[in-house]
């Protein structure tokens, strides 16, 4: 059958953008530095030359303005892909996204769809300091009317964009900044689009469920490898879609393993990890053999120095230690 190809996450994003631009004439890309500079994470390099200024549009440094323009274009029948440099900067566009994009379909009684896709980098790990390193996905996952997805693998980076463009509602895609150079497999040919509904079990195990997403997935998998050496079997669940949460997959796993550890680079207070823990407590309490545990970021602005940045965010050692505690070893 068709062989797989090995490409980087960055190449996967670029291929997905290219595919969307080729398949649907209504698709265009806009954002800060996406054209001449090729994107702040180089995801769109070469696209300006291929598709021209009409479809690859550099914007002024005004998130509220160009995200709002993207929402308007979507309402007007286009399929815009808006790139925001980081989730930190997206806060300037929060009003447009939360008050307009998320509500218009509801307030028009379903008459007006807002099929905009907003991509942004998120997370720490590249020594970019507090104003470029936070993980605020949970703020978007809080809002009805938005679908929030976090491709953690190269195949998801390649396949989620096209599916997101088919949604009548705004979709926010969070790309963790430490993933762009990672390599992974994608199918060699055929349809590459993937669903944006279900969580994925990335590794099967019986002793505890390690629930995570985005940039923390590789740390969770590394921790699971280490724990396997101690005969602790981890089931690693990649949420993939942060809103709506795939509760079914999470609960089915926890009911089987009886223990849950959630790894989330967001701050613990008011986190997505907190929401997941609450749902497990609500729906699977009598199947739990240990309290639900979380490994989250320390409640500080993410520091610049490497050792402090590492100390502030979830790391493999911390996940391993928390897992040992859960299985009481």
């Amino acid at each position: 059958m068709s062989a797989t190809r090995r490409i980087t996450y960055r190449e996967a994003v670029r291929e997905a953008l290219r595919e969307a631009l080729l398949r649907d004439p209504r698709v265009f890309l806009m954002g800060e530095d996406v054209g001449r500079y090729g994107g702040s994470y180089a995801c769109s390099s070469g696209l300006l030359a291929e598709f021209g200024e009409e479809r690859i549009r550099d914007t002024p440094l005004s998130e509220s303005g160009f995200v709002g323009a993207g929402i308007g274009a979507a309402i007007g029948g286009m399929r815009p892909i808006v790139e925001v440099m980081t989730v930190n900067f997206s806060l300037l566009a929060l009003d447009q996204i939360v008050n307009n994009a998320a509500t218009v379909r509801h307030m028009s009684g379903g008459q007006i769809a807002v099929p905009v896709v907003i991509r942004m980098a998120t997370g720490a790990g590249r020594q970019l300091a507090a104003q470029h390193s936070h993980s605020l996905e949970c703020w978007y996952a809080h809002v009805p009317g938005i679908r929030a997805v976090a491709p953690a693998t190269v195949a998801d980076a390649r396949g989620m964009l096209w599916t997101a463009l088919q949604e009548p509602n705004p979709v926010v895609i969070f790309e963790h900044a430490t993933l762009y150079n990672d390599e992974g497999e994608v199918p060699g040919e055929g349809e590459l689009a993937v669903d944006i509904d279900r969580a994925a079990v990335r590794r099967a195990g019986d002793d505890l469920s390690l629930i995570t997403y985005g940039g923390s997935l590789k740390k969770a998998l590394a921790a699971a490898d280490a724990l396997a050496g101690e005969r602790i079997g981890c089931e690693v669940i990649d949420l993939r879609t942060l809103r709506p949460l795939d509760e079914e997959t999470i609960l089915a796993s926890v009911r089987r393993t009886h223990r849950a550890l959630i790894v989330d680079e967001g701050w613990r207070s008011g986190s997505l990890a907190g929401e997941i823990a609450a749902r497990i407590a609500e729906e699977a309490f009598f199947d739990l053999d240990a309290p639900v545990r979380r490994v989250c970021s320390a409640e500080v602005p993410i520091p610049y120095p490497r050792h402090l940045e590492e100390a502030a965010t979830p790391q493999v050692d911390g996940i391993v230690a928390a897992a040992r505690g859960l299985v009481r070893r």
Partner: protein
Amino acid sequence: MPALGADMEAGTLVEWLKRPGERIARGDAVAVVETQKGAIEIESFQPGVLREIRVETGARVPVGEVLALIDGEAGAAAAAPVHATAEAPARAIAAAPPPRPGAAAEPEPEPVVLSGQRRVPISPLARRLAEERGIDVATLQPGADGTIGLAEVEAARAALAPAGAPAARAAGERGLDLAAMRRAIAAAMARSHREIPHYFVSSTLDLAPLLAWLERTNATRAPPGRLLYLVPLLKAVARAMASAPELNGHYEADVFTPSAAVHMGVAIAMRGGGLIAPAIHDVDRLDLDTLMAKLDDLVLRVRGGRLRSSELADPTVTVSNLGEHTADAILPVIYPPQVAIVGCGQIVPRPWVSDGGLVVRPTMTITVGGDHRVSDGRSAAKFLARVEALLKTPEAL
């Protein structure tokens, strides 16, 4: 030790029907257990080879206890649980648990005993399983970290087996303790009355077409092959039941789970008193001869005190047939966790209006007792109308 009824807490192992090393197919009877409802054959859900017998004959053990180990067909898959249960007791009885590294300053966890003053942390899962398996949580030993989890409950189950068995009746002294059975009926019926808001809906049906057909059919058969009227009656009830999902199933923990299959409990009176309603499986799909054979077999085994575990655990609905020379109608009481019961009175000749004229017809009053938490009288009324329609063309059953 399976729970052969909602109220069963323990059972006595009276006979092993398989020996270690013997091959077991799914559904094979493996052992005979005596309960308040008589001697029950325990069937295996698992094909494989009987590896080890854990409970001696004569021992009385709580529900949930491991009776024996079966090696599954896929050896690797079976090895894991066996390993886990084998290791657990060793951990539980270790005299002094080794201190955890870096925990020297922590006070030693006090050995056991849940008193009113001191609460030992126990996980929700451990508490639930202990309850289900009849293990008193106060007797559980906490682990090295001072908490009680799944591992400690498993250890207690394994350790309990030989010690916890009280003096049992000698093996072979099988048979029924009628007083115990009466207590079991009392518990089930008291629960039914306490928890289930019953409603009753009745119809009186003309059985002339059924009895005429039965007479014609039986006339061509030798006596051993003849059908009782109960057989087509059960079949009609089962077929009507198959399209009444709100009457067929189980209600447990505030949730009703309808059953796709119709496993019909048939109330059978026992010699010397007592009553039991074991299941005939998939009655709606059996032909009448098979159903007759199964009914014969069941009655024989009930009276011999020899039932199978699936027959006790599986009924999704029950039929109580009073039979000949009894009474005209019965308001039956539901057997929990089922949600309906069908009561049939004796066949009585009654004046009947047919085509505007008065005739005498053999009739039967059938009453449905339904659980109002799950269904309404309308469901039962529609069900009875279907039974009536089916009995008009018995040859189609």
